[in-house]
């Protein structure tokens, strides 16, 4: 077993030795044949690789040609070896570098770091970024890699490789820049593409690819982006590639069937001056374009509203201070104001203001305040042609950027204002109409009454409205009357007629009414309007006119007969008197003659009364004292009224001077007293008083129908039955009498009234059914004169004379009797039948004639007054008596008498005739 084991172990040992021998032989062979680059020698300090000559040369070659700097340092930092790159980096030849210290090429900070590496014992390679300062002062950033060499005892301690960082840093920046650019390109919201110089897209960002179908690049731009435009101009990439910048704002591209609106910008891509391609951006403006489109539509719509509005619209720029300026105006503005739009825009609003002065601050602020409150104000614009128009304005503030604007909307209210004014005028006319106006609805209820209605009827508007017009019903008209009226109205026709209605106070009044249906635009009757005229006053006037016409007629009648009638009466009276004087007349005959005389007197009196009340009596006024007039007639009055009635006379203590016809006043007094007596059939008391009165106010004067001023008064009161209201209305009318037929003429008070009026005075009465009636006569007061102070001529006994009288009388009967009367009194009488005859006789016997006694009214040639004038011209001392029963030319007027002229009414008694002749001659 041992042997066996030994053999096995020996066999293994032999095998191993053989293998080792083969290996040694292989090594020997390889070395012999030069087939080895290096040998590795195991040593105690570590294995060392020895390179053979060929290998080292290779490394040297490699080191010399590499771009990194390679150098070896001694332990103290001396450069023992440097390759060519080091020479380049340090900017000097190698023979000037080898043997120098590396720190000599470093700045202070890097020297310190280098020292630290040199003394460090770390075996691992150490890297250090440092800066080399070259021979020309140029600095070079390098990465230095230090490797400590393990060989002990060798001068060589470090191998250093220097890598130039300049390029590396530049590249890093380039990389960084490129990344940034790529990022910008990719993240851009716009589509960005880059084409080559042939127009092929070589780069496209995400957005650009999204716009295009997914086909690989490069592709022609036009194929990738088939753009459409609304204008003929297409995107001209060729122009871009020629160096132009092209912009297209209305491009459209189809993306999956949807239009995308694009703005396309193209610019050349240049490199070293040459055009390498184009950069094109495509901006999706679909949303913006749609928004713009909508905005434009909206703006067009509002523009249309602005343009076509019937109202005037202004866009105003409102400065903080001063007048707003027109920035826009619509067509209504130019149409209504007559200005071109261009004439308005940019002008201050004061140009179209009606006031010529600059629009003042106060007004601007006032309007602003109204506008702020959302209100409206009115203003007047001056149009280009100078006319003005009124507008109602509302203003809204607008905020358009920093400047304040306002939109003024102005409605032309000129026509409306005119219509309103016209309406107001119409309303005023209705309101102020003298006619009463009533509007009723279809039911007949009053809807409106004007003030005239109120004052006429006494019903106020509030009382009348809502009532039926039958409120005024007087009961005068029967049912048929109203039925006819309504039937007419319901036929749609107007009704006109005379209505007697009743006022609120119960009195009746008369109206001329026209009632018409009021129709609306469709012709339906909606109201009735009654226009009524109060004709009460008219009727009153009509009655007065009738009255005055009656008096006129009576006057004409009286005047017509008076002349002849008086001549007849004159003849009768004179004849009666002459006959009565005959001796031996039986008593019965004498009595008969007296009755004839009395009747003739009454007839004369009636004629006189007729003339008096018709104011045709010749008036002979003179200054007189009313007290004297009353005193002189008192006895006669007592006789007239008789024993049963007591007469009391209360005279004013002072003379009451007036200018009046004494005879007429006597007449008035007599008439009043007779009237008073007749009012007291069972007797009573009549009081006559005189006094003064002053009509101080216009109102009083109007009421009494006299002038303002001082008056003398004559008052006659009775204690009789008085006058009823119905009598009072007619009391001064002629032929009105309450007396039984035959007892009165009905002329007494009418005559008194006529006389009063002829004297510019008046007569009125106060009635009191308990205490009787008082009549009062007012005559204008007159300043006292010497004549007035004198008493009236006392009736003297008729006396005769021997003077020569020229008697002119056309009525033969009267003339004959007059001659008898005058000649019986001793006068010498020359007769003439007319004026011509009288003139002839005067020619013959002018010297002897003392008195001309002539009728005023004569049929032919020269009248009495003309005759008197002519004769007195020739013989101024000639006395004249004018006589007349009625004189048409002097009827109702004052008879103006010249010097030595007198008037004798006809008929007169013999005594009156003779007395007048005597007085005239004795003057």
């Amino acid at each position, binding site marked *: 077993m041992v042997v066996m084991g030994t053999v096995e172990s020996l066999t293994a040992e032999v095998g191993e030795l053989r*293998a080792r021998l083969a*290996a040694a032989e*292989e*090594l020997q*062979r*390889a*070395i012999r*044949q030069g*087939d*080895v*680059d*290096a*040998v*590795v*020698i*195991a040593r105690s300090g*570590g*294995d060392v*690789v020895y*390179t053979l000559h*060929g*290998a080292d040369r*290779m*490394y040297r070659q*490699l080191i010399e040609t590499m771009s990194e700097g390679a150098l070896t340092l001694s332990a103290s930092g001396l450069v023992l070896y440097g390759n060519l790159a080091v020479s380049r980096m340090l900017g000097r030849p190698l023979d000037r570098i080898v043997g120098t210290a590396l720190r000599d090429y470093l700045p202070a900070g890097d020297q310190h770091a280098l020292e630290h590496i040199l003394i460090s014992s770390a075996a691992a390679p150490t890297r250090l970024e440092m800066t080399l300062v070259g021979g020309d002062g140029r600095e070079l950033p390098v990465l230095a890699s230090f490797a400590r060499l393990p060989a002990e005892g060798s001068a060589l301690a470090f191998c250093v490789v220097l890598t130039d960082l300049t390029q590396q840093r530049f590249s890093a920046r380039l990389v960084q820049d490129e990344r940034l650019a790529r990022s910008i390109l990719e993240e851009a919201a716009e589509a960005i593409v880059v084409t080559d110089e042939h127009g092929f897209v070589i780069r496209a960002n995400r957005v650009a690819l999204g716009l295009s179908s997914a086909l690989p690049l490069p592709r022609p731009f036009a194929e990738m982006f088939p753009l459409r435009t609304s204008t003929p101009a297409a995107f001209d990439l060729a122009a871009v590639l020629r160096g132009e910048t092209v912009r297209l704002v209305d491009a459209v591209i189809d993306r999956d069937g949807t239009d995308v609106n694009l703005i396309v910008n193209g610019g050349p891509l240049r490199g070293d001056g040459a055009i390498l391609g184009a950069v094109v951006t495509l901006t999706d403006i679909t949303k913006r374009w749609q928004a713009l489109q909508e905005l434009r539509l909206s703006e067009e719509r509002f523009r249309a509203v602005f343009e076509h509005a019937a109202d005037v619209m202004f866009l105003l720029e409102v400065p903080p201070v001063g007048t707003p300026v027109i920035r826009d105006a619509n067509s209504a503005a130019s149409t209504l104001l007559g200005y071109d739009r261009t004439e308005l825009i940019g002008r201050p609003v004061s140009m179209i203001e009606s006031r010529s002065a600059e629009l003042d601050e106060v007004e601007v602020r006032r309007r602003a305040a109204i506008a702020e409150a959302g209100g409206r104000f009115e203003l007047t614009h001056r149009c280009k042609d100078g006319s003005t128009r009124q507008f109602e304005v509302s203003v809204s503030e607008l905020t358009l950027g920093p400047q304040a604007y306002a939109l003024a909307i102005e409605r032309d209210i000129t026509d409306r204002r005119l219509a309103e004014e016209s309406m107001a005028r119409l309303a005023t006319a209705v309101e102020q109409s003298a006619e009463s106006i009533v509007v009723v609805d279809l039911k007949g209820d009053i809807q409106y009454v004007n003030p005239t209605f109120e004052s006429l009827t006494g019903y106020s508007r509030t009382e009348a409205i809502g009532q039926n017009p039958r409120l005024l019903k007087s009961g005068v008209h029967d049912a048929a009357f109203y039925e006819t009226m309504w039937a007419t109205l319901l036929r749609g026709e107007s009704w006109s007629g005379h209505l007697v209605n009743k006022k609120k106070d119960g009195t009746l009044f008369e109206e001329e009414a026209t009632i018409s249906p009021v129709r609306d635009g469709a012709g339906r009757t909606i109201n009735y309007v009654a226009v009524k005229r109060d004709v009460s006053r008219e009727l009153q006037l009509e009655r007065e006119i009738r009255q005055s016409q009656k008096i006129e007629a009576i006057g004409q009648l009286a005047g017509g007969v008076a002349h002849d009638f008086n001549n007849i009466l004159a003849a009768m009276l004179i004849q009666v008197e002459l006959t009565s004087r005959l001796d031996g007349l039986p008593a019965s005959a004498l009595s008969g003659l007296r009755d004839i005389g009395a009747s003739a007197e009454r007839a004369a009196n009636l004629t006189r009364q007729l003339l008096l009340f018709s104011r045709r009596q010749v008036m002979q006024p003179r200054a007189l004292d009313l007290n004297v007039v009353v005193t002189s007639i008192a006895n006669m009055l007592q006789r007239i009224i008789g024993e049963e009635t007591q007469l009391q006379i209360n005279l004013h203590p002072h003379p009451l001077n007036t200018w009046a016809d004494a005879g007429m006043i006597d007449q008035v007094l007599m008439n009043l007293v007779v009237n008073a007596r007749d009012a007291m059939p069972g007797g009573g008391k009549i009081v006559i008083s005189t006094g003064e009165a002053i009509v101080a106010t216009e109102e009083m004067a109007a009421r009494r129908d006299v002038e303002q001023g001082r008056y003398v008064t004559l008052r006659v009161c009775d204690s009789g039955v008085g006058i009823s209201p119905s009598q009072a209305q007619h009391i001064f009318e002629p032929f009105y009498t309450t007396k039984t037929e035959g007892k009165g003429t009905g002329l007494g008070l009418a005559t008194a009234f006529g006389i009063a009026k002829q004297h510019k005075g008046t007569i009125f009465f106060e009635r009191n059914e308990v205490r009787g009636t008082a009549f009062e006569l007012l005559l204008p007061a007159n300043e006292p004169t010497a004549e007035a102070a004198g008493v009236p001529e006392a009736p003297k006994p008729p006396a005769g004379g021997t003077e020569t009288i020229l008697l002119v009388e056309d009525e033969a009967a009267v003339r004959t009797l007059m001659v008898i009367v005058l000649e019986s009194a001793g006068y010498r009488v020359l007769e003439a039948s007319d004026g011509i005859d009288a003139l002839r006789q005067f020619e013959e016997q002018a010297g002897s004639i003392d008195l001309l006694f002539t009728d005023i009214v004569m049929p032919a040639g020269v009248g009495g007054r003309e005759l008197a004038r002519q004769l007195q011209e020739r013989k101024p001392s000639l006395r004249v008596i004018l006589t007349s029963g009625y004189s048409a030319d002097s009827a109702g007027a004052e008879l103006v008498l010249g010097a030595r002229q007198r008037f004798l009414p006809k008929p007169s008694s013999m005594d009156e005739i003779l007395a007048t002749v005597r007085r005239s001659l004795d003057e």
Partner: protein
Amino acid sequence: MRLYVAGLTPRSMRAISNIKEICEARLKGRYSLRVIDIYQQPALAKGEQIVAVPTLIKHLPPPLRRIIGDLSDRERVLIGLDIRPA
């Protein structure tokens, strides 16, 4: 197999090139080759008792064989790798 080379010397380059060619021709799909630079990994060279470079060492199948040189003698390499009998 492991091929130990010394840097980028022409001989080492040739050795890599030659062995790669022989393996692909004779042992395609049945071999494993690692090229080791003794400058970079001197410790590995020591473990294999490498004294000259380039050296190709065949571990499998045994026995272990060493061939030194640029491996340009194809016959010798084939014999060394026990592909062809000696």
